[in-house]
């Protein structure tokens, strides 16, 4: 019989994080002998473009769909259409607020960012001024990671003041300029948190270009530049999700859903904090990409 | 008699130019008042002040006995003043009718346009002008001549009490000029006052009642046209005597053939045209509007494609695919439409003059030698008497005639063996005209082959050693130059139509 086709509609495409998810999906595809395609809009703001992508994919009568909704509500009519056509939907990255998806492969961004806050606090000794370079003001991941960090700081570390939250669209150059501006505006800043790869690298660049010293940088995700920064000690450490795992689990789940097998409500692919000390451990190395 | 217009003490300044120095002018009911003067004398400026386009820097304007302050085109229209501008100002993408009635379209409810009424009213106006032109034709596809007629029709449609005509005949041929004069006489009879600007002296005698002469932005004098000899008017304009040396045709039959054109063809515009020009010869081309002279010239110059035909330069067959090839082959072409095809009006005089010859002003590294370019430009400015504050003045700020002189300077500088001049003296004052005639003859004298396309028969006859006549894309004959050939001979060839061919935009 002809091969099973499982398209994944993601939130993005070019960013390294999504490429890692893609690679995980491809691994699974190879392993289970299914055909996987991976697509995502240029920016996480383009909700309607993602809908168009989903529509186009459904035209190909896939056997199951992986979907990372930019906005759950907006997608619901199409998801219904999929359900009616008997196409199981697996949500990934962030959940789809609807009962249509058979399962959700995700990590808890809020908790992950909170961990980042804890680490930051630990490094700067529980008091001082810190700032956040976030990658997006409106996207789910952007909001969760920002708020996860801010809320944790607010409730657990009264002596730490978050002086500025600014956004660099995950674009390394923009994030660099943003970070430099923040450093200029806040002499004696103790630490900075970058909410995704681009933001984190931006901070690192800023520190290099302004040759700022003893600033604690906590990053997010991985990528060669970031892992290098950690090895060199420019960056204290970073949170990483398991993007490869997300991709892999999504495809795996989609396949079992297609086969009608039972699935858990949520497949938590987990997140980790890593730094120079554990960066080379197998468990961590497995979830890092570069 | 009641005066429609009375202006006096009019002052106008432009950067570097004092264009109007306390000028006076008046216009009576039902008269044609000619306004004469050299290029840059200030004629158009004065009229733009009267029609509210320029704000005057001094002086007073009375319209029908009342002090008036025309603050813009609309106000001027309301005061009953209509103007035909020297430079065509039409919307090329719109149809003829849409242009004529722009701003006054017949409308239904909610600004709905009544296109049928629009076209019909336009057709009616054209009918009164005996003008054969399809109201639905796109203006951009029409010839300058036709576009000029549209401007006239537009001005007429305002039914103004005062009608300003700034060189309306510059682009017209005798036939249309006759029509225009018919219209003017009719308007006179209706009591309309007409201000008429032209550089064609003969026209003054034909229609003007009074003549006011300006020089260098100053009022010179106002005289009765009937009792003042042209020579006097001319000397008032130029400030000196202009002697027209009669044409003596040199014998060039022995000279080498510079340009030999055989069996040129393109659609209905060019139909097997063959002719040749020898070194030192001036070949004139006469013909009615749309005869296709420009087409032939443009085709030879590689500006438009050819369907068939052979072009030999100095005996060698040349394949000319672009103006670039043409210039390389030593052929230059001065277009009849300076605004669109002649000038980069946003650039200064110096840049425009050198535009066709930049290679001669550059070193190996492609660096320009501004110094030399300046000297050359200044040279031509004085030689052709171009009125401009400096060689860095943007060309669009020059008067019409002075712009034309800049184009001529460009090609004189380029110095080709074969030069095609299409309407070279369009809008150029009598003094400068004779200068340019001398220049052309000098060029011929130096052994260059010159082709002159002109819609002014006197000009063709004044210059040409031989006269080619075209009609509807065919070369209907070549007449010898000099006293032997009369206007009648030329017109006879120019009207050898053959049935079943119609011109652009005609019904």
């Amino acid at each position: 019989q002809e091969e099973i086709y499982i398209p994944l509609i993601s939130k993005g495409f070019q960013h390294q994080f999504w490429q890692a998810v893609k690679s995980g999906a491809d691994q699974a595809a190879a392993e289970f002998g299914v055909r996987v395609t991976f697509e995502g809009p240029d920016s996480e703001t383009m909700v309607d473009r993602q809908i168009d992508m989903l529509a186009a994919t459904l035209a190909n009568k896939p056997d199951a769909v992986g979907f990372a909704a930019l906005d759950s509500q907006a997608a619901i009519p199409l998801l219904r259409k999929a359900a009616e056509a008997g196409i199981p939907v697996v949500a990934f990255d962030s959940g789809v607020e609807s009962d249509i998806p058979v399962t959700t492969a995700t990590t808890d961004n809020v908790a992950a960012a909170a961990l980042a806050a804890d680490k930051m606090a630990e490094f700067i000794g529980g008091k001082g001024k810190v700032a956040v370079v976030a990658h997006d003001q409106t996207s789910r991941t952007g909001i969760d990671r920002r708020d996860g960090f801010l809320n944790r700081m607010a409730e657990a570390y009264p002596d730490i003041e978050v002086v500025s939250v600014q956004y660099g669209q995950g674009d390394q150059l923009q994030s660099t300029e943003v970070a430099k501006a923040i450093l200029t505006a806040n002499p004696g800043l103790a630490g900075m948190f970058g909410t995704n790869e681009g933001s984190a690298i931006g901070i690192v660049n800023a520190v290099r270009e302004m040759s700022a010293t003893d600033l604690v940088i906590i990053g997010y995700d991985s990528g060669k530049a970031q892992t290098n920064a950690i090895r060199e000690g420019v960056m204290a450490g970073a949170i990483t999700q398991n993007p490869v795992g997300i991709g892999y689990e999504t495809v795996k789940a989609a396949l079992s859903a297609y086969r009608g097998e039972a699935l858990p409500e949520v497949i938590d692919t987990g997140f980790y904090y890593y730094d120079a000390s554990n960066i080379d451990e197998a468990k961590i190395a497995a979830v890092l990409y570069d | 008699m009641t005066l429609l217009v009375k202006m006096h003490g009019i002052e106008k300044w432009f950067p570097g130019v004092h264009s109007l120095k306390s000028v006076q002018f008046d216009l009576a009911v039902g008269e044609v008042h000619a306004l004469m003067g050299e290029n840059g004398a200030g004629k158009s400026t004065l009229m733009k002040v009267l029609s509210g386009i320029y704000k005057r820097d001094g002086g007073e304007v009375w319209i029908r006995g009342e002090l008036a302050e025309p603050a813009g085109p609309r106000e001027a229209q309301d005061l009953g003043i209509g103007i035909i501008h020297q430079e065509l100002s039409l919307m090329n993408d719109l149809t003829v009718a849409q242009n004529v009635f722009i701003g006054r379209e017949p409308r239904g409810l909610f600004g709905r346009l009544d296109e049928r009424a629009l076209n019909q009213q336009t057709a009616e106006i054209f009918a009164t002008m005996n003008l054969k032109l399809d109201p639905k034709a796109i203006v951009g596809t029409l010839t300058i001549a036709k576009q000029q007629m549209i401007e006239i029709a537009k001005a007429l449609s305002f039914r103004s009490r005062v009608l300003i005509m700034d060189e309306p005949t510059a682009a017209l041929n005798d036939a249309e000029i006759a029509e225009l004069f018919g219209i003017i006489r009719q308007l006179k009879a209706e009591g309309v006052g007409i201000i008429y600007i032209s550089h064609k002296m003969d026209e003054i005698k034909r229609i003007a009642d009074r003549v006011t002469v300006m020089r260098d932005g100053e009022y010179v004098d106002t005289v009765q046209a009937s009792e003042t000899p042209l020579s006097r008017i001319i000397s008032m304009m130029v400030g000196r005597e202009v002697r027209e040396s009669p044409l003596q045709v040199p014998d060039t039959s022995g000279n080498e053939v510079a340009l030999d054109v055989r069996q040129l063809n393109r659609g209905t515009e060019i139909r097997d045209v063959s002719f040749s020009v020898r070194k030192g010869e001036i070949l004139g081309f006469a013909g009615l509007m749309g005869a296709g002279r420009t087409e032939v010239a443009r085709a030879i110059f590689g500006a438009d494609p050819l369907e068939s035909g052979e072009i030999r330069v100095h005996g060698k067959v040349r394949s000319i695919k672009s103006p670039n090839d043409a210039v390389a082959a030593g052929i230059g072409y001065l277009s009849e439409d300076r605004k669109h095809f002649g000038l980069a009006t946003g650039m200064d005089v110096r840049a425009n003059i050198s535009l066709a010859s930049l290679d001669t002003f550059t070193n190996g590294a492609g660096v320009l030698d501004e110094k030399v370019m300046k000297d050359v430009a200044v040279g031509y400015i004085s030689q052709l008497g171009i009125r401009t504050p400096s060689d860095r003045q943007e060309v669009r700020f020059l008067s019409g005639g002075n712009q034309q002189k800049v184009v001529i300077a460009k090609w004189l500088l380029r110095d080709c063996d074969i030069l095609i001049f299409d309407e070279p003296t369009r809008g150029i004052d009598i003094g400068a005209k004779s200068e340019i005639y001398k220049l052309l003859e000098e060029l011929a004298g130096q052994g260059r082959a010159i082709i002159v396309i002109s819609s002014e028969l006197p000009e063709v006859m004044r210059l040409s050693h031989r006269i080619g006549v075209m009609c509807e894309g065919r070369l209907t004959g070549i007449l010898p130059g000099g006293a032997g050939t009369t206007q009648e001979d030329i017109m006879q060839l120019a009207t050898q139509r053959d049935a079943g061919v119609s011109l652009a935009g005609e019904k």
Partner: protein
Amino acid sequence: MSAVIPTLAPSTPGKPKSPLSRLIEMGTHQRLLAFASLIVLLIGFSLVSPNFMQTSNMIAILQATSVNGVLAIAATLVIITGGIDLSVGTLMTFTAVMAGVVLTYAGMPLPLGVAAAIATGALCGLCSGTFVAKMKIPPFIATLGMMLILKGLSLVISGTRPIYFNDTPGFDLISRGSLIGEIIPALPIPNGVLILFLVAAAASYILGRTVLGRYAFALGSNEEAVRLSGVNTDGWKMAIYALAGGICGIGGLLIASRLNSAQPALGLGYELEAIAAVVIGGTSLSGGRGTILGTLIGALIMAVLTNGLRVLSVAQEWQTVVTGAIIILAVYADMMRRKKA
């Protein structure tokens, strides 16, 4: 109608052409040309992929065209006057947000929301128009500024959170419902598409048959000449920009109802796509010429292209490459055919 003559390259005075060929170029010529490219694409895709030519997919394509199409129509109006409008995308978003404020925050009835969106659009358009006409700011700058201002305001007003229309029953039907489908069940064309075509019809009527349209072309063709004819050019220009703004308001309603929410961050980058559709449709950026039908086809070409490549599940990076190449080819094909004509 003059509107239809395409320019080869902006700011090049048309070199003499035989009156004949000019005539042919007028009328439906240009539209047919772009149309040809569209047909070729459709046939091509359906040959390669059996799944392409399904009613559902065709409708998906139309659905995908609707928003960009409406924005492109707005852009066409401005471009015909010789201007450009970079604010269509963020203005769309802003109007959607305003609809959200009226309907969800203030809980007013649906018609008021619709009115609010369109009025907001017209008002913002009027602003751009004023900047351009009265303050003589280049359209590019005026609308760029507007684009940024509106982008920011959308975020401010919405509190950077999407506004959902769940409390406004029937709002999503504006684009998702299908009046046609109720009459002809075999043809479930969504209302969004219907609205697109209605807007297009209205716009072409205005351009072709009303004074406003006439002056739009006249301004783009030779503004100075229009002024010299005693027309109040500034006023008419502002009117055009306002009209375009209002149309963007309709676009805002379409996208909002399609996503059943106003997404405040949306809209950046949409302006380029809209303008692209306009130019592919044969409208000249130098003004004075253009047709709504052409723009529609331009928008369809782009939608078909993206959808088709996805249905073929071409790798995304290659999709961009192919899209770029085909856009160039499609327009080149136009040039060639026009030359022949």
